[in-house]
């Protein structure tokens, strides 16, 4: 078997295009993913045109902390990466060129419109959004982002208004000084102090007199108003943010998004390198008419199969390590977990190699095996990335069954578990990979019976 392995490596060495692809593909993939993950700002870029005059400020009631053009910008630009532009034409050009996902324009009279909300003639404040919906996925993304942005802005405003209303209620209950700009400051007595004064006055009135009875009913009303306004305070807070989220994970051990992306890159690399190499290499034995000559000797068909799986494991181990090393320059990989990473690559490589051997044994020709490997592997990889909840329950069950029959899903789980302590438990996917190696190994051996 050693000589067969050396022979395959020698043939590989003399196929510079294949070797170049085997090295360049994972490095390129790693660098691309690394750049995508290590970008300093992953928020979408949005052109921002602020037409609100610099000295204008929007205040609610007597609150000193108003909303000015700077605050509006800061609040809106928390969710997106704002690219400031000076004119509407500049904003339109950037959207058209695809430099930004969208343009957000705050009109000159936005603060006036906001201020009108507290008047008897309220107007609906409007902001303008320019988008370039050149494909449906981008259009959907823009809609989601803009909707989230406006929801965020509305939430900020309603919180401000609720806070201000709560201040008014406090003033009504406890009393204090009320500042009316440009007119005057005046004292508000408050329900609590009013109740105390009324109680004192009531004590001085004759017990059986009509005046005292009437005053007592006023005192009861004041107490009732104070108590109910106390209840109104938390209600205002609830109105400002009626629904909050308490997230509980009931299923799945998800690793960080970065780690998941690295695991996907590593698994896709493993899949293509191993399946194509093993399927092609096995089919080549038949294409070169060497299969019968090799297997009539000491090696035998099972030995040849084992050699091909070993070739796949060796190649996939080297290439996947190369990918991870290339990624290390750009993203953080927990190399203290190297033994687990190595174990995951070996197990996944074995499963993919066995799968590739079954394809190579069935196809018999290098071209047919390469085509078959692509046609089978890609849909399985896509199916393995379909998240639950995005399709109906029945369809997802069917997808889960299909996933379990192929190596991509357990390989991805093994890589995630190896790369991240918060990822899935690694033992089950390793055993799953081992089972797949055995099952596809048997299928490949059966296919070789028709090989000669």
């Amino acid at each position, binding site marked *: 078997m050693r000589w067969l392995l050396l*022979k395959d490596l020698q043939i590989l060495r003399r196929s510079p295009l294949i070797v170049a692809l085997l090295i360049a593909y994972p490095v390129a993939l790693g660098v691309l993913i690394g750049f995508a993950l290590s970008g300093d700002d992953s928020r979408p870029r949005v052109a921002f045109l602020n037409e609100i005059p610099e000295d204008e400020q929007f205040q609610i009631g007597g609150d000193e902390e108003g909303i000015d053009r700077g605050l509006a910008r800061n609040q809106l630009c928390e969710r997106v990466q704002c690219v400031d532009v000076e004119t509407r034409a500049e904003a339109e050009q950037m959207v058209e060129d695809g430099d930004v996902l969208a343009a957000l324009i705050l009109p000159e009279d936005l603060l006036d419109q906001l201020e009108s909300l507290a008047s008897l003639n309220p107007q609906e404040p409007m902001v303008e959004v320019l988008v370039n919906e050149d494909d449906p996925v981008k259009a959907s993304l823009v809609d989601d982002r803009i909707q989230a942005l406006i929801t965020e802005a509305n939430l900020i405003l309603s919180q401000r208004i609720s806070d201000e209303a709560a201040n008014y209620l406090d003033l009504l209950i406890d009393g204090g000084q009320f500042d009316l700009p440009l007119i005057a400051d005046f004292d508000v007595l408050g329900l609590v102090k009013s109740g105390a004064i009324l109680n004192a006055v009531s004590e001085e009135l004759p017990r059986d007199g009509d005046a005292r009875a009437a005053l007592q009913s006023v005192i009861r009303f004041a107490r009732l108003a104070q108590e109910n306004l106390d209840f109104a305070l938390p209600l205002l807070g609830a109105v400002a943010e009626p629904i909050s989220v308490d997230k509980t994970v009931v299923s799945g051990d998800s690793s960080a998004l970065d780690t998941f992306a690295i695991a996907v890159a590593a698994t896709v690399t493993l899949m293509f390198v191993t399946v194509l190499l093993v399927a092609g290499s096995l089919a080549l034995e038949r294409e070169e008419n060497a299969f019968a000559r090799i297997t*009539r*000797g000491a090696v035998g068909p099972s030995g040849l199969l084992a050699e091909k799986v070993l070739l796949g494991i060796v190649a996939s181990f080297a290439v996947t390590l190369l990918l991870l090393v290339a990624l290390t320059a750009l993203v953080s990989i927990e190399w203290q977990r190297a033994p687990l990473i190595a174990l995951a690559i070996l197990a996944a490589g074995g499963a993919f190699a066995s799968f590739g051997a079954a394809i190579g044994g069935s196809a018999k020709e290098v071209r047919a095996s390469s085509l078959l490997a692509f046609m089978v592997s890609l849909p399985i990889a896509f199916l393995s990335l379909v998240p639950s909840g995005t399709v109906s329950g029945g369809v997802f069950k069917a997808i889960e069954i299909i996933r379990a029959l192929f190596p991509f899903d357990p390989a991805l789980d093994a890589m995630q578990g190896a790369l991240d302590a918060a990822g899935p438990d690694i033992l089950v996917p390793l055993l799953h990979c081992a089972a797949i190696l055995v099952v596809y190994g048997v299928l490949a051996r059966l296919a070789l019976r028709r090989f000669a």
Partner: protein
Amino acid sequence: MIEAHEIGKKFGDRAALRSVSFEAATGELLAVIGPNGAGKTTLLSILAGIREADSGTLTVPGKVGWVPQQASLYRRLTVAENLRLFAHLEQVVDVDVAVERMLDQTALGERRDDQVGTLSGGNQQRVNIAIGLLSAPTVLLLDEPSTGLDPRQRERLWEFVLDLAGAGTTVIYTTHHVLEAERYGSRVLVLADGERLFDGTAAELHAAVSDSQTRDFERAFVSFLRERGH
């Protein structure tokens, strides 16, 4: 001596060999001829151990070298690398000696470091035969060895094979060039539809046809098949 007795082989419902028996002595050149689908390659693959017979017994003394019809070589490996690889797979004791011996016998020493894919068809066939001889077999099986060779290459090939037989190697070969059976075969085995129709010398086959006056062996062979319903 190699002995085959009542060898039978079926592929599904189709009988590829029907109770074929023959013998071949040491140093003998046995030509197996017959129309397409006669069972020639199936017979050789059973003798080589590639396939198993469904029935019958086979006695083969010593090692068997097998040279398949199409060159079984790795085109991206050199001549020497191909020889070395198969010597290891055949578990030859002294690989280097065996490789040098075959390079010498096939006169391919100068091309030893050339990739096989760059060789002519004739030279590829020489490497193909050399691999079959690596283990110094007592029986050599050649499946249509001269296919694709020009007359000069064919002549060199048969000189080489005759030398082997002269040195004591039993050679069993199939061919579509029936004149090669007449010229080089010490005996001729005729198969048709998996059945043995004749086992004897070329002269005996010539004599077995009704029009025995014809001097052309190929015409005599065709007449022989026609007279027996093939």
